[in-house]
């Protein structure tokens, strides 16, 4: 347990898990609306021996792109992007993600913004990390209503990437590609395997003894809550306010 163990927020645990998953990457690209991945990437830039390139789709000031929005997709197509992140309104046990609709596509019950680049990047980036702040049977389902991007593909379909992990406030799953199934890697401090079983709509593998997720170590926390939180507030003001208590507008002024 870290020194500040009991005050650690769920988002901070997620950021720490993501930080470990992106270790050693040369280029971490972060899509729009992804504050947790952005925070983890900013940490990696400060902590990794070989500071990775970090590009934020959301922020021209924090990106390395000079050839338009297409350059992210081109770079992924060229094999230059090692890590990307997705969430999903629904994520299912086979790693399929749904960013489009709930219910029948022609007459949906709920509609989300859309698939963005997921249907492409999910194939092209070796390490896709899924994260979902709501861990429930509503979000983690047996089968998504709509496959925005499939978790796996038949062997003849060109694919160099896909999901490697799913991170939630309860736990960290890894993805077993040959079996197209998730495996419970660890449960976050304060939660239990029973809770995960209870709240997860899909079947998953797990070891006999499920480890506890290590929280952010003592040397990481001040970095996260200090300079990284400030950097984040300029791009994700609402998130930075909620998690780190930085008032909206403070970073812009």
């Amino acid at each position: 347990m870290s020194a500040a163990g009991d005050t650690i927020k769920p988002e901070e645990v997620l950021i720490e898990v993501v930080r470990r998953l992106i270790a050693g990457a040369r280029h971490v690209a972060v899509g729009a609306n992804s504050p947790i991945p952005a925070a983890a990437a900013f940490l990696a830039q400060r902590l990794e021996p070989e500071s990775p390139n970090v590009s934020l789709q959301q922020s021209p000031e924090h990106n390395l792109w000079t050839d338009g929005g297409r350059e992210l997709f081109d770079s992924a197509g060229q094999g230059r992007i090692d890590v990307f992140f997705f969430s999903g309104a629904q994520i299912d046990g086979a790693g399929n993600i749904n960013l489009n609709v709930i219910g029948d596509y022609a007459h949906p019950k709920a509609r989300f913004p859309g698939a963005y680049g997921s249907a492409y990047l999910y194939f092209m980036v070796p390490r896709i990390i899924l994260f979902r702040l709501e861990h429930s049977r509503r979000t983690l389902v047996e089968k998504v209503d709509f496959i925005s991007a499939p978790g796996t593909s038949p062997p003849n379909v060109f694919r160099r990437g896909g999901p490697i992990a799913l991170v939630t406030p309860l736990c960290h799953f890894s993805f077993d590609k040959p079996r197209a199934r998730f495996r419970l890697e660890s449960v976050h401090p304060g939660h239990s395997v029973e809770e995960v079983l209870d709240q997860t709509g899909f079947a998953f593998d797990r070891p006999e003894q499920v480890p506890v997720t290590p929280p952010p170590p003592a040397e990481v926390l001040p970095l996260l809550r200090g300079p990284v939180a400030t950097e984040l507030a300029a791009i994700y003001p609402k998130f930075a306010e909620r998690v780190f208590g930085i008032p909206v507008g403070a970073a812009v002024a």
Partner: protein
Amino acid sequence: MGKSRDLDGALAAISDGTKLAIPADYAGVAMEATRALIRRGVKRLHLVTLPASSLQAELLIGAGAVETIETSAVGFGELGSAPRFTAAVLGGKVTLKDATCPAIHSALRAAEMGNPFGTLRGIIGSDILRQRPDWRVIDNPFGENDPIVLLPAIRPDVALFHAPLADRKGNIWVGRRRDLFTLAHASARCVATVEALHDGDLLADEVMAAATIPAFYIEAVALAPRGAWPLKMGDLYAEDTQHLLDYIALAQTEEGFRRYLDDHVFRRRAA
């Protein structure tokens, strides 16, 4: 004088039924022009977003100006969903052609190159592909049992965007918003609003020329200082986050949306 017009004059190229291409927030969105289009009551637009949109598509859809939208997403990122877009899709009030970002890039680049289709890896197994009968899967003739997606080229009638600078000839400096080159090249005509006019010829300076769309692609330019408001404009000004949050709250109802239009779109005309 050349291609400079007042805002309404510049927007004459956009009429009912126009296939209108617009950029994502990071590339410069012509919001002042969008409000002018809504005031004019434009109808039946076929919007193409390169590749996603927020307030621009949302307002046009809410105002009933859009018949079809081809997009990879409409939303406000972490601020929330786009309420009028969501309502219009759920209510069947707009024809939505769901896409994924690089598909729209590829289809517009195909038009830019004069090709009938673009090519795209990935997507296979996505229901997006299943919902797009206009997209085709062929067997890569250079591979073996290697399916790959072809997308018909998108050739918009008009591209509309907001840029930092134009000179008096109609050359437009866009900086690193390189998607705007694709939009200008792929579209038959191009209308731009700009923050400021540049004295002299943007093409005569090698440093500026490198990020300048030449005037021969440009139909009309209108001056519109802070013309992307309440969205951001690169390094020039930030998004007006509070305004967007207020909008999202108001636009949860049709009635609230109308009030927003009255306050922020129609009132300007009276002013």
